[in-house]
């Protein structure tokens, strides 16, 4: 019964789906997999511990936290907000796109801007909605939903597709440690370098998307004024 070895994968899927504690789920999956594969408890603990010690490098990002923390105290987020606010005369799509571009650049430098609660809700959404209502008057709920969805999405695109461009990002270090653990010598610099193309492409895709958002809002507002 080879297939029983997949029980660890099943445990991870079920554990994550049911929102059990992530760390506990992962460790449990490892222990059970080792046991069904006939490893002794001592062998399992040794394998787990050995890999954990070798892959401490996956947690190097911790050493960047004191610097970033002090930068925050001295106004990192405030200045990012000032910068975005200084943009004038933009359309809804343009505001959202600019935020994605800034978010992409900041993710690539591992700056934590604070995401949805500290940036999208208080700054991007009011600016994007303000641009639309200046043009089309008061917005309907459907229209604000489109704008808010796209604004939140811009945060995710920038965050996801660019974070690995930073050598010390936890995703980059995960790729390195997984491959090294499996016997392929790659470095964080190489992985970060090969993460750049996707970051650039995501900005291009975001630009096209922002044009589509503008035309979608234009169409929705047009239909609305015809109906009136």
């Amino acid at each position, binding site marked *: 019964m*080879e*297939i029983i*070895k997949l029980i660890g994968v099943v445990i991870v899927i079920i554990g*994550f789906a049911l929102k059990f504690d*992530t*760390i506990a789920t*992962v*460790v*449990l*999956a*490892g222990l059970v*997999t*080792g046991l069904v594969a006939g*490893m002794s408890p001592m062998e*399992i*603990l*040794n*394998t787990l*511990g050995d*890999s*954990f*010690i070798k*892959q*401490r490098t996956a*947690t*190097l990002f*911790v*050493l*960047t936290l*004191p*610097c*970033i*923390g*002090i*930068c925050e*105290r*001295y*106004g*990192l987020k*405030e*200045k990012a907000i000032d910068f975005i606010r200084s943009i004038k005369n933009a359309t809804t799509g343009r505001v959202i796109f600019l935020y994605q571009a800034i978010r992409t650049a900041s993710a690539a430098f591992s700056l*934590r801007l604070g995401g949805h609660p500290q940036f999208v809700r208080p700054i991007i959404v009011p600016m994007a909605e303000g641009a639309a209502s200046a043009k089309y008057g008061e917005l309907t709920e459907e229209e604000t939903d*489109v704008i808010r*969805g796209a604004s939140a999405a811009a945060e995710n*695109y920038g965050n*996801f597709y660019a974070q*690995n461009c930073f*050598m010390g990002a936890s*995703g980059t270090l995960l*790729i390195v440690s*997984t491959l090294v*653990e499996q016997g*392929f010598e790659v470095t964080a*610099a190489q*992985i970060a370098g*090969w993460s750049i*193309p*996707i970051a650039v492409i*995501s900005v291009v*895709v975001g630009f096209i998307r922002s044009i589509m958002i503008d035309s979608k809002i234009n169409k929705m507002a047009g239909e609305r004024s015809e109906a009136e």
Partner: protein
Amino acid sequence: MNFATILQEFFSVLIGIIFALTGIKALKDEGAQKKVTTVAFWFILAFTFICGYWLPRWITGLAIVLMAVLTGIKGVVQSASDVPDHAEVRANADKFGYKIFIPAFIIALGSVVLTTLGASVPALSWLTSNNSICIGGLLGLLVVLLMTKAPVKYSVIDGTRLMDNVGVTGILPQLLSALGALFTAAGVGDVIAKGVSAIIPEGSKLIACIVYCVAMALFTIIMGNGFAAFSVITVGIGIPFLISQGCNPIVVGALGLTAGYCGTLCTPMAANFNIMPAALLEVKNKYTIIKSQVPVAIVMLIIHIILMYIFA
């Protein structure tokens, strides 16, 4: 032990100290919830980073199981941090302006410059990628301290504040690569590979790229976590069907994880990115963000497959 390894151990000890200080912060917090288990978690983690290298490995293995029990019983919570007050931050921002971005750029650019030096100058070969990241982090800290003339104690106060924000999930990448190692030792990768070989015709790189990228995205959709998908799918599919067939591990690895993120954009399982913000933004339909993201995710996934096929 060469100099590069000594340096790496030194940085591990530093990281361990940050974990220990996070534990001490909880210890000192009068009103802390679940104090004993929280402090225990951070101290055990610090112990594995500081002493683990010198001890038999099963001790670290046991420590991992203990930490999993502590997080499993929801025993690890944030303690009170000294959060900078808004007026203070605003005044600082006005005083220092955009200069405050410099230290952060120094971390990122410094790491790249140092690692390039290390790779090209034989005498500096101890500047490995990993050591460069650490030195970059310390360099950034030095610059921000000099620039702002902030008291040195803020490196502890703000460092542990962020560490506590990141929380226990900070060790997830490291734990997942340990899980990958266990999976490999147990032969899980072989089982997945055997199953998948039914759909991948021998020698078809294009189909292998499609299967790997789509599997990354699908697994991420199911689990809501690209990191976990990466360790399972890369061991089971990426390595046997792409890397072992001569594909470049750097390209496969780098594109593999972001292919998984295409799945993150489509799943309510990634609630903190897709569902909680919907509530925060007070939209009518809680799937609004996912709806907005799906077309982009599909386009990006196709681009991943094409890039991997051409460059891997």
